[in-house]
């Protein structure tokens, strides 16, 4: 079953009179439970594709379907609802809320979803334990290392059981050891919880861990390989 389906997606950015084509007609299907890396050099369009799949940006043309929801004509509120219920995000620069503790950051999405307090706290603590942050619940982001912050971000992304997790260069700011540990952790989540992970990356280590590697170059699909990590 396809959890993501992109059909001939195009996107052009305009800066004054200059036009930059980010995507030139990408078609892509990703199956549920996939662990997929969108790879390519800087400016190839991988982040743009990730943003369009996540409903953060809109395609100029083409169609995007995420778990049966056609994103093309959705309002901002509908897209927000879709992101809240179906999509988790992990960013290159962690993007935790600085005034909230690790536990509160993980709770945040469940709060928005209206999960009852006890369940919310239990789930947040369990997931933080799962990502190896036991005992660091009350630390604010500034009191955590980069790797720990990214673990909190992953915990936040998966705690509400989304259909897919979109990770934009998740290891870019981490040293190789921490990056590897994070990838292994996300791999376990993928296997245990059947959460679909889609990465945008140009990190070889991420590509090596991915079970499917989609190469994008100049806004077009250059290669698509199913592989054993």
């Amino acid at each position, binding site marked *: 079953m396809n959890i993501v389906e992109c059909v001939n997606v195009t996107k052009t950015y305009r800066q004054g009179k200059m036009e930059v084509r980010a995507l030139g007609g990408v078609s892509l299907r990703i199956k549920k439970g996939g662990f997929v890396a969108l790879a390519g050099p800087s400016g190839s369009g991988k982040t743009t594709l990730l943003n369009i799949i996540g409903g953060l940006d809109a395609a100029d043309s083409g169609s995007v379907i995420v778990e049966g929801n056609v994103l093309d004509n959705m309002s901002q509120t509908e897209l*927000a609802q879709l992101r*809240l219920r179906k999509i988790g995000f992990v960013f290159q620069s962690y993007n935790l809320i600085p005034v909230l503790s690790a536990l509160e950051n993980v709770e945040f999405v469940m709060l928005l979803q209206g999960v009852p307090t006890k369940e919310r706290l239990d789930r947040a603590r369990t997931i933080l334990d799962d990502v190896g942050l036991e005992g660091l619940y009350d630390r604010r982001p500034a009191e955590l290392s980069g790797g720990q912050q990214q673990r909190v971000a992953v915990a936040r992304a998966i705690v509400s059981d989304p259909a897919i997790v979109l990770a934009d260069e998740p290891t870019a700011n981490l040293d190789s050891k921490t990056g590897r540990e994070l990838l292994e952790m996300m791999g376990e989540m993928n296997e245990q919880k059947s959460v679909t992970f889609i990465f945008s990356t140009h990190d070889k280590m991420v590509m090596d861990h991915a079970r499917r590697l989609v190469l994008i170059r100049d806004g077009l699909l250059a290669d698509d390989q199913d592989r054993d990590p």
Partner: protein
Amino acid sequence: MYLRLGWRNIWRNPRRTTVILIAIIIGVWSMIFLGALMRGMTDQMIRNGIATLTGHIQIHQRDYRNDPAVENSIEDPAPIEAALDERLPTGAHWSARIRVTATAANARYAGGVTLVGVDPQMEARVSFIGKAIKEGRYLREDDPFGIVVGRALAEKFETGLGKKLVLMTQDTEKNIASRAFRIVGIYRAEMEATEKQFVFVTLPAAREMLKLEKGISEISILLPGHEMVAATLASLRDAPPLSGCDVESWRNLLPLMRAYLEIYDSFIFLWYLVVFIAMAFGIVNTTLMAIFERIREFGLFKSLGMKPWWIIKEVMAESFFLLLLGILIGNILSFLSVFLLMNHGIDLTRFAAGSEFFGISRVIYPSVYGRDVLLANLVVFILGLVVSLYPALKAARFKPVEALAHV
């Protein structure tokens, strides 16, 4: 969650939060405290006006107010006085007076005054004069030639206790009536103008001088509270003995003061608005700065699934706490300032000459009205939230991709 985020966010930049809090505190303080001072001023103006021979209600013969001459006196006040005893609420007092313009003269000076003939005991319960004697004594019932004058008049006439003062006026037969009195008391009033204007003699002395048998110029009524005026006025106007009389409240008897009070009520709201507008620029500016510093964070909120309305609520929560804190501290400081001035007030003696024209006392005591405090707080709180909507809407409109890419 919004409240938790809002509270923590305002303390991310304590210096900026402190600056805007100070602006709100000063605004609220000035609204409440200076408002209380102005209310105190108007309250004292009313009290002075009422105590300076006006009372809450006055009864005159119908033509008296247009032509306050002796021939427009109430010829037989007895039926009216009986109606008053029957209809006035408990705790109310009344006093019948003769009031005519006269010329006062001694060996050195002559000048216009208002001659007031009073029943000493009854008048003492209604107007200021009973408690205002600073030298000598108050009038007695059997005081055919005693007169009480104001200190300013005594100084102007270079006279004093025991000295003679001749009053001249027109009697009921339109002849010049004159009578020599001896100064038995000197009074002080809130306003120098009052001291120069009014001289007091006994009612029988005034009647004798004016050849009035039983007549009086007016009856002044003092009620236990302002709120009883309307009902008492209605009751008295219905009384048959008063059918040929003018029965008016202090508001109609002091039209200048009424106009001033009406202007003040409009002014206070305008003033609140002006103070608030100055404050609003601070609130909007601070909130905008806080938002533009956190564009990425709003992008994150959106990517996590926060709807625009939820982001508005988050920003509004920050303004809510700023306003709440500012209002709370502003109120505490205002009440503290009022408390400190409650006993001694602000002495305006230096400016009394100018302020007297408006009937303003020498010493101003603040007077806190719940309605004014509520209005000031509501103006700041509600309009504060309303102006915060602008930065909140800005935050809600950020596009997630652009916001997340913001450096």
